[in-house]
């Protein structure tokens, strides 16, 4: 690993000040992704500003029924939190489907949002990758790409975002709070990540010196009936081929509220607005669910290795909605 400086930040103001003044500095949370990438020589910071001592570890109920989650809450604790489990089960399940118990004990909410793709060519310094080295080309296109994106990809990058948690947050209309020397701003989670376009190395709207300090979930009654379904090659400890975060409310056979997001299919957690539009106000039947999935996936395109993901996403959307419908929680 390349040598680097290390600073432990005593407070948020110092953390953001150091990162804004030191050249090539990065925030260090749980380190479960950043440190790996440093070992591989993909991330090459000169200074790490350790933020894990900052007081951003609360999970608080907000007036009006929402929840505010400190950015340094560890994944395991968030998954086990009673408020989260009862009001946003999709989030708890998404967290528990990710990584391993050991990693979840360390990984933070803020870090989870900005973890980087698992595209093997991104990890491999001997391969061409526009994300790692802008303009270098993309070896995944034309290479091994079974795990890659079918929605929102570009000719420059077909990587996917690996987070499960972020998919649930995308379904839940979460808002991310950012802090920098210029002050505080709030960004809807759906606007946090960017599609690759011509600049796949720019993955979020965060500036280099902005620290994620909190994630807020709105009051969202539909989320009480929600589920996360992750489909992968082995039963645990694998990234999603496709995942679905869904919340559904049905009254008298008609969908009165719905949230749907997909993981493993794009460079960002993919909110399925097209599908939601089909579902809302329609009858809650398998046929409608299929129609909704097809509407969302109409724009999907596959490569030889990953075209199966389109059909898999379609089936997983339908199966997840059906499950919410038949287990009674959606009524």
């Amino acid at each position, binding site marked *: *690993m*390349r*040598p680097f400086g290390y600073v432990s930040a005593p407070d948020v103001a110092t953390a953001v000040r150091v990162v804004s003044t030191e050249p090539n500095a990065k925030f260090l949370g749980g380190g479960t992704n950043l440190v790996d990438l440093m070992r591989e*020589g993909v991330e090459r910071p000169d200074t790490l500003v350790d933020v894990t001592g900052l007081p951003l570890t609360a999970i608080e109920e907000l007036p009006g029924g929402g929840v505010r989650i400190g950015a340094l809450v560890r994944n395991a604790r968030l998954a086990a939190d009673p408020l989260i489990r009862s009001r946003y089960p999709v989030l708890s399940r998404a967290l528990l489907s990710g990584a391993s118990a050991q990693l979840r004990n360390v990984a933070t909410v803020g870090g989870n949002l900005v973890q980087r793709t*698992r595209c*093997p*060519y991104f990890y*491999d*310094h*001997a*391969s061409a990758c526009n994300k790692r080295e802008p303009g270098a080309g993309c*070896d995944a296109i*034309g*290479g*091994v790409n*079974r795990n890659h994106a079918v929605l929102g990809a570009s000719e420059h990058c077909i990587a996917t975002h690996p987070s499960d948690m972020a998919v649930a947050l995308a379904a839940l209309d979460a808002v991310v709070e950012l802090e920098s020397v210029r002050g505080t701003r709030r960004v809807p989670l759906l606007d946090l990540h960017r599609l690759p376009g011509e600049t796949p190395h720019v993955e979020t709207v965060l500036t280099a010196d902005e620290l994620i300090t909190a994630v807020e979930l709105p009051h969202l009654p539909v989320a009480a009936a929600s589920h996360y379904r992750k*489909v*992968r*090659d*082995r*039963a*645990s*400890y*694998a990234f999603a*081929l496709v995942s679905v975060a869904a919340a559904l409310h049905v009254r008298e056979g008609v969908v009165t509220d719905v949230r749907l997001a997909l993981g493993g299919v794009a460079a960002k957690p993919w909110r399925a607005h097209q599908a939601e539009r089909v579902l809302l106000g329609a009858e809650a039947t398998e046929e409608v669910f299929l129609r909704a999935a097809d509407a969302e996936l109409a724009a999907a395109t596959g490569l030889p290795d990953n075209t*199966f993901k389109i*059909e*898999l996403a379609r*089936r*997983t959307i*339908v*199966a997840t909605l059906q499950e919410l419908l038949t287990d009674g929680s959606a009524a």
Partner: protein
Amino acid sequence: MTTAPARPDAPPTGTSGPYVGAPVDRVDGVVKTTGAARFAAEHPYPGLAHAALVHATIPRGRVTWIDSAAALAVDGVLAVITHENAPAMRPVKTQSVLDLSTLVPGSTVNHLASDEVHWDGQPVAVVVAESRQIALHAASLVRATYRELPSTVDFATEKRNALPQKKSVVDPGRAAKGDAEAALSTAAVAVDHLYTTPVHHHNALELHTTTAVWDGDRLTVHEPTQGIDWTRKHLAHRFGVPVENVRVIAPFVGGAFGGKWHVWAGTLLTVLAARVVGRPVRLVLTREGVYRTVGGRSPSEQRVALGADADGTLTALIHTSVTQVGRVGGGPEPATGLSRYAYAAENVLVEQKQIALDLVPNTYMRAPGEAIGSFALESAIDELAHELGVDPIELRMRNEPERDPIDGRRFSHRKLREVYALGAERFGWAGRSLRPRSTRDGRWLVGTGVATAFHPANLFPANVTVRISADGGVLVRCGLHEMGMGAATAQAQIAADALGVPIESVRVEHGDSTLPAAPAASGSTQTASIASSLLAACEKLKRSALALARGSADSPLRGAKPAEVQARDGGLHAARGGETYAAILARAGRSSLDAAVGAERGFAAVAGQVRFMSKFLLDRRRWVRAASGAQFCEVRVDAHTGEVRVTRWVGAFDVGTVINAKTVASQLRGGIVMGIGMALSEATVVDPRTGRIVNPGLAEYHVPVHADVPPIEIHCLGDPDPTMPAGVLGAGEVGITGVAAAIANAVHHATGRRVRDLPVTLDDLL
């Protein structure tokens, strides 16, 4: 349990005591669970330096420029060794069956002797530094440029150019009886399909690691190897020192599975680096480094064609394979081996072809040949059963051979009927519907499958000494390999029973080239091979003890003949009474009594090698010897997503004598777990454009996790093979065979979908 009649030429089995067969705790259990056991990377040396490798990033060509300056500028870097400054090693010797150590080089490349690159990942430089962290960082700063030469790296496109494998004494590569193609074309029912398997890697928990210490021209190497003796000889040759000057130490190996059988680049380059810097040097490969420099299992394409009468009698069996070797090393993968012995077909053709690619040479991996060959053959049998509308076990039993179907040799211990009966009963096979897709449980499609497990049994010569001391303690000395399977425990049990002493008084010294040499731990041969010599040594020892006692007027054994003497209760006993070894030694005024078997040197060793090869070949002409089994599983396939989960497993095996009920079950279970990975998730992915391994790590090479593994029931017949020492057929590899086929067959039963390309993934089932 069934019992085979004793045969006149049966060797002493020595397996009648209280320990053999019992679930004895591992003798190394405490040191391993407390962390006291030292593995190869855990030996401290003053002045120890650390190495890291720089790997080539092209498949074939020449290094045109290599820049070490940035690496050398890093504080704590001691040396950057490249082809420009490396001292020469001697080239690899030509392979010869008279010197089996010539088989151990993982590659013929003489590392850092030239600018040539033969595969993506080949080491082009070694960095030595004060710490591993510094070495790894400095290695990342070494820059190389290349002139690339044309290469062939893609198995899928090159397989059509495969040539028949060269014939060798160990594996003829081809066998035929009758005209299988003609019989196939006229068969009442036939199946004829291609099956493929990808590259696999061993992924032992312990990374490949070497600690090399030079003292003048004496070399000590801590190395987790499966072949201490051959590694020692190979290092002596490559570095031009007498064999006696090299000591290889490996008391504990943290998993190997074939991946630590050969001597790979990292080992040689560590020894070289230690010579260059004049300090002890340690190299612990990164996981990526293991993938790039240590071979894996060859991929394969296999054709299996079966023809049968309407009643299911096989008339034709064709099994051909294409596998790969590296252009600079590797060897045949005997994928069709099982098909020589499996079924009593009238007409048989087995043939192995191979191609050479510009990739890291392939190597052995748990059940080479049989692991992947059984996937193809046992899937095809299931397909034929489905075509015939016959239960797949019934089809197998109808075609169970009495003798070797090709050349009529006898089976020493053919127990497939028994293991199938046992397994079927324990699994609850009776009443299974033949119709695919006939069972559903909620979202899950449920199916069951079965396949034959089979692995040949062999023997290699082993040297052993046994000593009984005046205090009654027994010391067994043998350079055997403890790689987690319980090897030392098994030999302690055998010695305790053979000498009639409590197991607590037996100590086994192992894992060091200063001990009498053991054969490499491979081919599931170690327990039987060492038992053979150990039992003979114990016999000698008992005779020596009796000789001391019988001449003494005071001994209750006075005048006793060897045949009337029993070893028990810490000593020898005859009709008129007995006494302990301690008492015998005390009266004779001896501090200890020793016996040795083997331990030859010089000409005697060469003669021993010749004698061994002759017996090896003679035995092969006389007997077909093999461990076998029946693998039963239940799978559940998600009706929507195609996810496959294995939910139940029963394995019934004939491994001959079960020396240790606990460790044998663990070995077999471990093989099944590895087979589940092979069936459902494991594949080393090679970029077809560049020959570069795309997933060199455990994050993307998916071995099974706990959640993928169901409870696994293991049953063994426990019946000794009358032709094998201690009746042992070996349990290290048979467990993985048949597993992938049983799963693919169960997936077909669950879904109606036949998958012929491993791994079986959900995209095959959508």
